[in-house]
């Protein structure tokens, strides 16, 4: 079984900022949290059933740190799409580039995260499935390989739906799949010699002007700090007085 896991390197959560050209600054990067859940599940499935996990990431050279960590967790190899012309890519371009890279790979399952901490889009997975003609199973809380297929529990408002499809298929997963492991010391040592294949846009047959800043279909027109909260009013009192304070506060704001 070969599972490809899409992993985006995102700015460390809590430190994100725009650079002078109004792109998200990509200096200090970490693996997108949601992608680590699907990676963990991919590792568990291949450990139990045999097979390999490949990582695919599109991003600047600094993304390599996040890929090395994922290799240290146990992935077999990584494909890194990197090219100066990629900076400023919109979602449409991201989908085109990732789809081109995926067409070069053969896999049984493609695992994608639910969304990214810097983009909060949650649309790359369904877009890739539609573009590549893969069955799409989303919001997975459980993933079970079948003979020639896959079964997934998709979280629903009421509980969950059980979905089945033939492979190759794309599965978008959630945190419910289980907490990602920490890399072991041995894993970290091994990761140093694992294969990282670097692809440029030319390797993927993509014309640079169609992506990145020049091909962008969306643009930022402004940014501002949100209206500041006035700072917390602090209550330190007996439980009874605290309750009265809360009631008065809520009543003043017409919330009760």
């Amino acid at each position, binding site marked *: 079984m070969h599972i490809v896991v899409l992993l985006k390197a995102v700015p460390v959560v809590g430190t994100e900022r725009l650079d002078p050209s109004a792109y998200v600054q990509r200096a200090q990067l970490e693996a997108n949290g949601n992608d680590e859940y699907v990676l963990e599940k991919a590792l568990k499935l291949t450990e139990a059933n045999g097979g390999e996990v490949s990582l695919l990431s599109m991003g600047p050279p600094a993304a390599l740190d996040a890929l090395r960590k994922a290799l240290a967790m146990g992935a077999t190899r990584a494909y890194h799409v990197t090219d100066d012309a990629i900076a400023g890519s919109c979602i449409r371009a991201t989908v085109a580039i990732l789809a081109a890279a995926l067409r070069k790979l053969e896999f049984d399952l493609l695992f994608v995260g639910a969304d990214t901490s810097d983009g909060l889009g949650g649309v790359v997975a369904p877009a890739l499935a539609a573009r590549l003609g893969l069955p799409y199973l989303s919001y997975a809380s459980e993933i079970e390989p079948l003979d020639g297929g896959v079964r997934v529990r998709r979280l629903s408002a009421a509980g969950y739906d059980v979905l089945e499809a033939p492979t190759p298929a794309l599965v978008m997963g959630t945190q419910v799949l289980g907490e990602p492991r920490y890399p072991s010391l041995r894993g970290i040592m091994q990761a140093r010699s694992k294969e990282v294949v670097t692809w440029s846009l030319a390797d993927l047959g993509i014309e640079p002007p169609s992506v990145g800043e020049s091909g962008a279909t969306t643009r930022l027109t402004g940014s501002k700090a949100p209206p500041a909260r006035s700072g*917390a*009013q602090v209550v330190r009192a007996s439980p009874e007085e605290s309750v009265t304070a809360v009631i008065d506060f809520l009543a003043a704001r017409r*919330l009760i």
Partner: protein
Amino acid sequence: MVTVWAVGEVADGKPSKLTLELATTARSLGGGETATLLVGEGAAAAAAEVAAFSTRVMVVETGAPGGPVAASMATRIAALVSQRSPDLLLIGATPDGKDVAGALVGLTDLPILVNGSGMTWEDGAPHVEMSTFGGRLVTRSTFTGSRGIILIRPSSVTAEQAQQTGEVEAIPLDAVDELPPVRVTDRVAKAGAAASIDDARVIVGGGRGVGDAQGFRLIQDLADALGGAVGATRAVVDAGWIAYGQQIGQTGKIVKPSLYLACGISGAIQHKVGVQTAGTIVAINKDPDAPIAEFADLLVVGDLFQIVPALTEAIQARRRGSS
């Protein structure tokens, strides 16, 4: 003239609240041609209610789909988009909405703006506001061309009825290109599913400070007294005290209640991103230096086991007094 379609969501023949919000947003834009599009099982039944909020309602009734809803919706919308070339599609930033929108990007190659929390119309173009970087920045974006898909979060606007009820057009749409097959082999409803936090006006959140699964009884009681829903942090969802559907934050849901009451929650950045646009945030925490102090409006320093039950009682008493 600009054509704007709001794409609705229907469950059991009823439109979601977000559908009415999207219809309202579409109507308020650009003065162009606007419509609400309902696709799926029960679309026809939902049309009358949606018409009160729309200039026009386009209905594609499908009957029960064999696979996931989003796939059957997306292929039909893609077919309509290629027939009628609307400029803008407004879609809800919900799990199904994101699946539909993403599939449309794949099928039609339309550009997309995501995570919209508000929208204005300037110089003939939509400008979409989004809250990003854990609430530290609000950005505005637009399309470089004239067409695209916009994802809008629940509760970004208040739904308002139109002055005139819109006309309803039933669109027969057979034979559309299907996406690869995914079968739904079972639908499992869990007993006693909690009230949804998606569009709750009041949410009472519980964190590790609640102690154990049993402790959530206190949180539930307070939520009941306030007529609200119960939210939670990842720590307590991972611990199995409460279902993932109630989780607020980066890998849970992003919510926008009028009141968020956080009990025994430290306010980690991954939690904060899910609630920072709440109207009012009240925190009960025994640690005055917990990060939540930085974004709460009222911080009560104290033991939630003493304060929460007393607060519940006080609110119940107030309710009885006023009824």
